């Protein structure tokens, strides 16, 4: 059974000029211990998907359709108090910027102990021991001493280790990591990703890893979901997504990988830009930029369709082939 199952998730922002549909029919699942990469251009809806899962969409944003199941239990409609108990305990979260993720007025030990004691029935002394062990596990030297230090006494990379320790403190089975290394120095990004991967593997925790970095995806993930304009364009095993992508958008993305090191945002190699939420075309959202577009693409929206080893939201893979 899958650990997390997201079905036809719709997230909307009601506004003065009508309702914006930021996520539209997003469906995927994550198996226990699995690492699912989520890629896509900025604004594709990656962060919103993560926020919807942990139940922290910022109003007026809200789930307007679909369901989210964790370990077979529906969680998207839980009362706030019950959802709070799941956050941290069942689903941990890591955000982009370690410099601003930690309360400057709390020692890291206080935050760790507080988080542990919120969710687990342990004494304060025991919680502190656990906290020290966690810090050691995340590679912080002299953990027993540094536990009483404040965030400003740590470097950016060290702070992200603390953030990881905090996310793992109550032993969740799933970590939603939203671009956890984007704000860090390039030289330590790989270390932090490797650390996250190792710690989750040791604990059997699954990861939803949101990132821009195709290199990280290739090295870290088991499966990949490609998002485009609030929808999933393609999802499948990492090897197949990289080597034989089925969706024209994914193909465009993957064509860029060899050049990733050259500091160019090659996502834009595909002509045009992702449409704004107010201007998503009917049919396939990618159709204005697609080189293989045909009539059906402009009229009907494609569901995720089996496309060999992956599943792609593209009419090219309609059974029997849709090409004219």
């Amino acid at each position, binding site marked *: 059974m899958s650990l997390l199952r997201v079905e036809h998730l719709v997230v909307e922002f009601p506004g003065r000029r009508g309702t914006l549909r930021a996520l539209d029919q997003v469906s995927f699942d994550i198996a226990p211990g699995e690492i699912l990469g989520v890629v896509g251009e900025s604004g594709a809806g990656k962060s919103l998907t993560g926020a919807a899962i*942990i139940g*922290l969409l910022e109003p007026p944003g809200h789930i307007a359709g679909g369901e989210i199941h964790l370990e077979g239990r529906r969680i998207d409609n839980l009362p706030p108090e019950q959802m*709070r*108990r*799941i*956050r*941290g*305990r069942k689903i*941990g*979260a890591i*955000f982009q*910027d370690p410099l*601003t*993720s*930690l*309360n*400057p*007025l*709390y*020692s890291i030990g206080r*935050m760790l102990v*507080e*988080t542990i004691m*919120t*969710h687990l029935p342990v004494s304060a002394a025991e919680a502190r021991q656990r906290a020290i062990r966690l810090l050691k596990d995340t590679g912080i030297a002299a953990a027993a001493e*540094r536990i009483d*230090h*404040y965030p*400003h*006494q*740590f*470097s950016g990379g*060290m702070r992200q280790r603390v*953030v990881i320790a*905090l*996310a793992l*403190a*109550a032993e969740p089975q799933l970590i939603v990591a939203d671009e956890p290394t984007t704000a860090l120095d390039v030289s330590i990004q790989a270390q932090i990703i490797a650390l996250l991967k190792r710690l989750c593997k040791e604990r059997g925790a699954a990861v939803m890893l949101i990132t821009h970095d195709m290199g990280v995806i290739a090295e870290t993930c088991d499966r990949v979901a490609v998002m485009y304009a609030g929808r999933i364009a393609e999802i499948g095993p990492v090897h197949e997504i990289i080597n034989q992508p089925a969706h024209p958008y994914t193909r465009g993305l993957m064509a860029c990988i060899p050049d990733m090191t050259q500091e160019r945002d090659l996502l834009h190699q595909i002509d045009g830009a992702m449409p704004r939420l107010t201007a998503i075309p009917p049919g396939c959202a990618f159709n204005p930029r697609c080189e293989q577009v045909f009539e059906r693409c402009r009229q009907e929206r494609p569901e995720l369709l089996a496309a060999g080893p992956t599943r792609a939201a593209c009419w090219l893979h309609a059974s029997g082939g849709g090409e004219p």
Partner: protein
Amino acid sequence: MLAFILRRLVQAMIVMITVALIAFMLFQYVGDPVTFLLGQDVTPEESRALRAALGLDQPFVVQFWHFLANAAQGEFGFSLRQGVKVSTLIAERFPATIELALVAALLALVIGVPMGVYAALRRGSFLSQVFMTISLLGVSLPTFLIGILLILVFAVQLGWFPSFGRGEVVSIGGWTTGLLTAKGWHHITLPAVTLAIFQLTLIMRLVRAEMLEVLRTDYIKFARARGLTDRAVHFGHALKNTLVPVITITGLQLGGLIAFAIITETVFQWPGMGLLFIQAVNFADIPVMAAYLCLIALIFVVINLSVDLLYFVVDPRLRVDRAGGH
């Protein structure tokens, strides 16, 4: 940190000397004290003798130095109006003002902070909007008007509280306090409320604004993502960060409370330093005015220093004693 404190002490000294200079100039400005003391028709010899006796024949700098040395010992000479030593007069009035200001500050904090927190957490609720409307009134109504209104309603109409004086006071080692008797509390209520209202609304608005700001930060979002209770997030993480600027402002306001107690003290005939000062101004009682100026400046300076030190206690980022590894 030591360097920081030293720097602040030097700044404080400069402020004090400047204020002392202004106070000292008051004496020059108001006219020749010799003429004042001896009248118009005196012989030049008499005048010169008195001048020498008072040290007035010495250069300006030397005179100022004497003034400073005396002031440092709390010595400001005799009140021109009452003929009593100024230091004695001030010492008599000092406790009344301090007690009034402290009670007002406490009132403002104890009511203002929770109101601000509520208005931030329940933004848009009916009660929050009521708070915000009241606070607008509090900020815009002048203190004397509030005082008079309170007297009108609670002293004249309802007769619940007395409208003037300190009531019964007890003397403890030279400090007269009204806070140990029921009558004293009865008397301090209206003036303290009057003095507190402006600060209260200020604190409430400040707390609300700061709290809203803090609630938007990443560390609050991350605290929620860890499943901490609303209570821990709001009253632990958020409130603590909110209080850092609130401490500063409130601390600085305390100086203002003491200084601006003048109006409240006048309205309620509260026998504090403010009332003393107003009377001194009416009679051009320079020594009393000078002493009051210096004392208020000293209070401001001491409060500022304490606020700076409090900052160190609250905000670990300012404590550089423990070197952080990077």
